[in-house]
């Protein structure tokens, strides 16, 4: 019986989180247009519903009813696998994120985390690096030179930026001493946010996150004006939608990951919320909202950057990754290790 409840609870949670990611991604497209418009002294979408709030629905509907085109010369199976993979990997990451403190319902403590695996953050990394297959397979299967070029670019970019990202992360792991996402957050509840100890690490992580999500200034795989939309050039209808959607989900998830790793997860800054004597469920919901707002802030910063700076040239991108970020990340790692050792003694 206990097992049944556990499975039910987890299934519900998975459903909730997946739909949450979808809704957030939908509204991120709306938000992106709004932010772009505001930064350019325009108003942005305002026709579909109040403040253009139904715009994502209209877009989704449009994508659904577009003609489905599969190029004759493409390898069909891989062509369909590409966007599916992009979407799946984008959604998988959310499984290990601790969304908030446990809820207490029906005499059960319900963890707001799908799986507290002991290699939590490694899982995130593994899945994120799988994401590159979505781009690579899609670009290769399209049988189009621009798509292929974009796929190669995307693959090498992601591989290069995963390195400094991982190195920046190692410093955090040394502070925590555990790979579990829940203990990473718990450590911050006790000792203060990691951003205080790891400002450089966060900066590196943030830059790499931009590159991993294919966001400007590192959106080379898409590069509208040189590669004709890159790897999703041959895609139409909802398969294109999946690619675009996966990007926004990735953005949201990386916002959540950054919040969890460096900004205390669901912690409210400067207060001890446990001392308020509030109901456990209420606290959990507050924590969840706090985490969401942190993630949304990062999503906003992503957009803000996109509408501020132009794209890097490809050699600049590689140079930045290999000759700047990796040495910096290494330095950060060694310094952290030394300080941790010194304090322990």
């Amino acid at each position, binding site marked *: 019986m206990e097992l049944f409840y556990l499975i039910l609870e987890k299934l519900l949670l998975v459903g909730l989180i997946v739909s949450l990611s979808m809704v957030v991604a939908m509204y991120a497209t709306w938000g992106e247009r709004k932010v772009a418009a505001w*930064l350019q*002294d325009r*108003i942005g979408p305002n026709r579909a519903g109040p403040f253009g709030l139904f715009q994502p629905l209209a877009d989704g509907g449009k994508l659904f009813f577009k003609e489905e085109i599969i190029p004759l010369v493409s390898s069909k199976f891989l062509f369909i696998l590409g966007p599916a993979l992009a979407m799946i990997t984008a959604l998988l990451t959310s499984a290990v994120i601790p969304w908030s403190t446990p809820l207490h319902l029906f005499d059960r403590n319900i963890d707001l985390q799908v799986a507290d695996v002991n290699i939590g953050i490694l899982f995130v990394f593994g899945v994120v690096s799988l994401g590159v297959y979505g781009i690579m397979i899609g670009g290769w299967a399209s049988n189009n030179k621009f798509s292929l070029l974009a796929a190669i670019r995307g693959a090498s970019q992601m591989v290069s930026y995963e390195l400094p990202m991982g190195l920046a992360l190692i410093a955090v792991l040394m502070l925590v001493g555990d790979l579990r996402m829940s203990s990473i957050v718990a450590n911050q509840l006790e000792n203060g946010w990691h951003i205080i100890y790891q400002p450089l690490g966060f*900066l590196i992580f943030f830059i790499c996150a931009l590159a991993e999500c294919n966001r400007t200034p590192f959106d080379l795989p898409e590069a509208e004006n040189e590669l004709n939309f890159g790897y999703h050039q041959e895609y139409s209808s909802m398969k294109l939608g999946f690619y675009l959607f996966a990007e926004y989900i990735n953005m949201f998830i990386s916002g959540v990951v950054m919040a969890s790793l460096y900004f205390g997860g669901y912690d409210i800054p400067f207060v001890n919320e446990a001392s308020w004597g509030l109901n456990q469920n209420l606290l959990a919901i507050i924590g969840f909202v706090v985490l969401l707002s942190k993630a949304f802030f990062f999503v906003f910063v992503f957009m803000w*950057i996109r*509408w*501020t700076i132009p794209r890097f040239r490809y050699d600049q991108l590689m140079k930045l990754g290999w000759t700047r970020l990796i040495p910096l990340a290494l330095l950060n790692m060694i310094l952290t290790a030394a300080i941790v050792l010194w304090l322990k003694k």
Partner: protein
Amino acid sequence: MTQLTQRAKQVDRKPMTLLERIYLWNILKGMMITISHLFKRKATIKYPEEKRTFSKVFRGVQILNRDEEGREKCTACGLCAVACPAEAITMEAAERQAGEEHLYKEEKYAAKYEINMLRCIFCGYCEEACPKDAIYLSQTFAPSNYGREGFIYKKEDLLIPHPIENPEAYKKALGEKGGNA
């Protein structure tokens, strides 16, 4: 070298300073500029609800005028069609019959009068050519349409509302130009 304009700027080829090479600082400065635009007044005009005010000499869609009694002024002389550089105007003349004096001011009138808005370049020559003050360019522009046929404006589309039967609409259509000016 002689400068062609006042705006020419000397390109600075100094090597980048450390601050510039770190790049982050400059990105931050750029981001501050963009974020300041978040709070600026938006340039957008929400078109169908809000309209830009045109200048008094704006040349928009043509209007066929009537006199104070509501009689059509155009006498189908064809001078406007001749003057039109875009050949946008076509018309067919007809003779005024007895009992139609309240409809048409002159003995000859335009039974058919069409302007193709896709051809018209809104130069206003028709207005200048007209000896009867029968046509002038108003301060509205031709709204968008789904088909080309919709852009061929018939006499009914062009005629100003009747000044006695519908004085308010007449005044509005007349705009700031004043009919017989």
